[in-house]
């Protein structure tokens, strides 16, 4: 099979799979929302024109048809070109980031067609994989700003400003969280990061819990999920940057949001939760036969699904942050934590082996102890110092002599 054909095949599978996954995740999200609220959720739509219900599995199709058949209306005051570019930009960026995400490991060729080992990623072995994801992922901000700006509506614009500030702020802790993993692995390739964890059998979350916390929080914020969902805040803040959108263009925004969430889940699993590795199940060699490779895909997707479920449960578990709290969590807590994590990991990479030797610990065990210790210390210090406590209430001592009311 020529390489071009192989790539096209992978792209087709990836795009089709992701779109289906996004559609069905909407359904899953609605189910979970319902269950958490003691309801049943959508369970009616099944095969059209019959009485077959299939637990509501036809719902995504119905939703899709609804979105596609909505009247395509463009508000009069919008900037016509940017109004179209914004959803496309955000969608393409969200899609493109998946090119380097490995959906499994390398498999040896079977009899049919393939002449080399098959890598289960569209652009396998890209040496700057992590950088690529970051670069492409940042374009999402562009889509948000453009969407708000092109709408020519002040609420959309407020929404866009709010969310671009949030997305840009949380990119820093996101990067810092990853930096620790990259330092420990010594590679930007996602495959290598997984193989490294599989080889040593210690997932990064065990040795770098601080980095994990920082990265998770930042990933939630970047994906615009509650409790960090100020980009939309559907209930309270007038829709945000896509207030003026409807129909297919709104759907592109929505799907991109789910793609961001899937990507965040993939990154959490690959960077910190060992990717396709599971002890005693999947082995750690890079190239394996089909059955093991399939098992790895299953393990990877199961982990990703688990993380996504957590994303969805989190939505109903904690109240949303106020905007100033959101910023304070990013700048006063997450970025310092990320910096501390980088310093600790770097120091340990340099001196860890010598430091661990007197206590008869392996490097990984030592790193784990240090990592959890540092997490505990950071958490305790943050709790005591409490940098996020800044009452925005009027205070008597500050307002005795004010003349604001005049």
């Amino acid at each position, binding site marked *: 099979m020529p390489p071009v054909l192989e790539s096209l095949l992978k792209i087709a599978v990836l795009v089709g799979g992701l779109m289906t996954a996004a559609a069905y995740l909407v359904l899953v999200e609605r189910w*979970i929302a*319902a*269950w*958490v*609220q*003691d*309801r*049943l959720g959508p369970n009616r739509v099944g095969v059209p024109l019959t009485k077959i219900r299939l637990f509501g599995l036809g719902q995504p199709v119905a939703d899709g048809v609804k979105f596609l058949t909505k009247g395509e209306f463009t508000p009069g005051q919008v900037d016509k070109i940017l109004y179209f570019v914004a959803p496309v930009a955000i969608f393409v960026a969200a899609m493109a980031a998946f090119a380097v995400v490995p959906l499994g490991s390398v498999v040896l060729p079977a009899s049919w067609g393939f002449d080399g080992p098959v890598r289960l990623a569209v652009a396998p072995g890209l040496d700057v994989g992590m950088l690529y994801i970051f670069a492409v992922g940042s374009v999402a901000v562009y889509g948000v700003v453009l969407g708000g700006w092109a709408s020519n509506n002040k609420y959309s614009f407020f929404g866009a400003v709010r969310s671009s500030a949030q997305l840009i702020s949380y990119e820093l802790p996101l990067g810092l969280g990853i930096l620790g993993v990259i330092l420990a692995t010594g590679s930007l390739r996602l495959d290598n990061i997984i193989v490294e964890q599989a080889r040593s059998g210690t997932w990064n979350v065990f040795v770098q819990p601080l980095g994990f916390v920082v990265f998770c929080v930042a990933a939630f914020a970047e994906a615009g999920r509650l409790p960090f969902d100020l980009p939309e805040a559907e209930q309270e803040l007038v829709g945000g940057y896509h207030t003026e959108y409807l129909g297919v263009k709104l759907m592109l925004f929505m799907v991109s949001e789910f793609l961001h969430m899937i990507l965040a889940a993939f990154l959490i699993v690959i960077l910190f939760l060992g990717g396709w590795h599971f002890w005693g199940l999947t082995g750690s060699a890079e190239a394996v036969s089909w059955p093991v490779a399939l098992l790895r895909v299953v393990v990877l997707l199961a982990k990703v699904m688990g993380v996504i479920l957590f994303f969805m*449960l*989190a939505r*109903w*578990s*904690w109240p949303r942050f106020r905007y100033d709290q959101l910023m304070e969590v990013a700048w006063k807590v997450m970025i310092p934590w990320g910096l501390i994590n980088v310093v600790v990991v770097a120091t340990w990479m340099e001196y860890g082996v010598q430091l661990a030797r007197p206590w008869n610990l392996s490097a990984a065990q030592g790193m784990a102890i240090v990592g959890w210790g540092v997490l505990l210390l950071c*958490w*305790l210090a*943050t*709790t*005591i110092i*409490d940098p996020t*406590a800044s*009452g925005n*209430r*009027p205070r*008597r001592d500050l*307002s*005795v002599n*004010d003349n604001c*009311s*005049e």
Partner: protein
Amino acid sequence: MLTHATQRTTMKSDDRNINWVQEPRLGLAGRSYLLLFVQGLTTTLRHFFSRKKTVQSPEQRHEIPDPSIYRGVHRLNRDQRGRVKCVACFLCATACPANCIDIVAAESPWTDREKYPQSFTIDELRCIFCGMCEEACPVDAIELTSLYDLSGKSREEMVFDKEKLLSVYDRTKDAKPMRTSRGEGRGAGDGE
């Protein structure tokens, strides 16, 4: 309330009328966010696995705890001789805040009352199901039943006339007995 003008001249921040409330400072447990984290997650999970309250509507019927106080579709009650109980006094139409009761009174063919409703229509689309008509009626002729799934294919269909309202009574008289016998003598007219 202070008007805006007085507020501007008198309300300074050291005004004694202002009750300054200091937000209580969170304790260590609250500030660490861990307690909140666990609390939130356990609450969500508890509900996630709890029994669901949804009623699968067309197949399952919603159980109405007390039909005698439920405010659903109206009915016009019949007396013991099967005649409409209403004496066309217009009290319900007067009480109705939605102005959706329309009565045409006529001289009664019976000896026990002067008037009876020649036509009696309720626009169920305009009705807000407040129950005022039921409260107002001196002879307990109009009542709200516990039928809640009211639907129709046109607006005209949703304007219930006397026949329809009486048929609602025939349908629901076993499920929900007439509320009181107050006024039975006057309304039912057993020749008092």
